[in-house]
């Protein structure tokens, strides 16, 4: 199988910053206030939880990491590249190196769960149809979606939708995954299962994962490397 499609510009830029941390927020004003700056660096293979109340600023961490929003000040570097400075089409190509589970699920309502999982593999890679099918079938098995793979998102329950969205997020085997409030409405067991599957890469190693959450259960704490508490747009050490 071939890797995801890339651009010459990105390949050159990525080579310059080889070995850079997967994700770094540097003096980012999450709430637009210059006196409240957010700093956080994720190392390779690290699972970090950003915990915060509503309007604490955690809502914007995912969109900033994906370049879907631009910070009022400061920079967000993904694999060493300031993502806010990339052009629209370079951003599209670059995002194929990242996994993203938006708040809710972001599944396309007119596609089945299987087609949703297949979407990035079909459109962002040069895989042949048979390879796409094999890859998608593997993901469906890994995320235990087989019995409900033919359902539309509206026909599936919240847990199944979230698992399908998670399978889609890791479909291109990214080294960095961003999960926005991924555990809302899930049982403790489903939460652990989801996090375990998302943080494990295809070669058996660990992916860098940034997840946002309102709170962390003890079971989740056992699966993450560290947690930071976000208060009024600033990261403080989580002492729990």
């Amino acid at each position, binding site marked *: 199988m071939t890797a995801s499609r890339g651009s010459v510009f990105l390949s050159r830029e990525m080579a310059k910053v080889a070995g850079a941390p997967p994700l770094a927020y540097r003096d980012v004003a999450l709430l637009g206030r210059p006196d409240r700056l957010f700093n956080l660096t994720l190392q390779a293979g690290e699972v970090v939880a950003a915990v915060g109340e509503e309007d604490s600023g955690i809502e914007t961490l995912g*969109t900033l990491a994906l370049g879907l929003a631009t910070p009022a000040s400061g920079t967000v570097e993904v694999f060493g590249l300031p993502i806010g400075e990339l052009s629209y089409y370079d951003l599209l190509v670059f*995002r194929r190196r990242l996994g993203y589970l938006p708040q809710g699920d972001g599944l396309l309502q007119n596609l089945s769960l299987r087609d949703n999982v297949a979407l990035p593999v079909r459109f*962002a890679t040069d895989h042949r149809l048979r390879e796409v099918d094999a890859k998608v079938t593997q993901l469906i098995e890994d995320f235990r979606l087989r019995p409900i793979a033919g359902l539309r998102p509206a026909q599936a329950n919240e847990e199944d939708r979230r698992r399908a969205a998670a399978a889609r997020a890791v479909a291109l085997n990214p080294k960095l995954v961003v999960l926005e409030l991924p555990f809302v409405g899930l049982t403790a067991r489903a939460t652990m299962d989801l996090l375990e599957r998302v943080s494990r890469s295809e070669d058996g190693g660990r992916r860098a994962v940034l997840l946002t959450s309102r709170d962390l259960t003890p079971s989740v704490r056992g699966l993450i490397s560290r947690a930071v508490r976000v208060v009024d747009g600033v990261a403080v050490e989580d002492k729990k």
Partner: protein
Amino acid sequence: MLRVLINQIRFTALQAIFLVAFLAAILAFLVISQSIRQLGRFGAIDNLGTIMVVAVIRELGPLLTALIVVSRSGTAIAAEMATNRVMGEVTALEAMGIDPYIYLVLPRMLGAIVSVATLMVVFDAVALTSGFVAAATSGMSLNRYTGIVLKTLSAGDVWLTLAKGIFFGAAVALFCSYHGLAVKAGPTEIPQAVTRGVVATIVAIFIMSALFVVIAS
């Protein structure tokens, strides 16, 4: 993407064929019946071909077809795009590295172009047939009717129909998609986006129709 394209053609062209054919038949019948009555008074029945070709085939046919497509498919496209935006699906596509304009807009544009062009051909065929029925009820033979129409109809009319199909079809998909994707506030904005998309498309189609007249002359 191919599935979206096929669905678009099925919904826009196939499911609208009977409506287009019905309106084409009625319009041509009325125009030709009235024309024969009026032209007959002045002994100018040979001008029937000019009325059929210029008024029905060249102008009213493409306009009416495009308006049918706007009212059926344009509204659906605008509503679907707006819903995609509101549900966060457009953002999800961008986050996956998929260009939403390629994934969502392009197949709809191609589908609309193929559909409008095809429906215009259907409209013309039915209108010509219905025109003959109207002429026949006034005692005109098939040979005379065919001769009168063919005298005015030229290869340029075929190209003009094709060009109008491409431009009108593209306008339906592009204007409706643009206004659908421009929704920001939430679900309550969807009906407004649909209205904006349809109005903009109708205005664009009439302007383009006028431009075609200027260019063709």
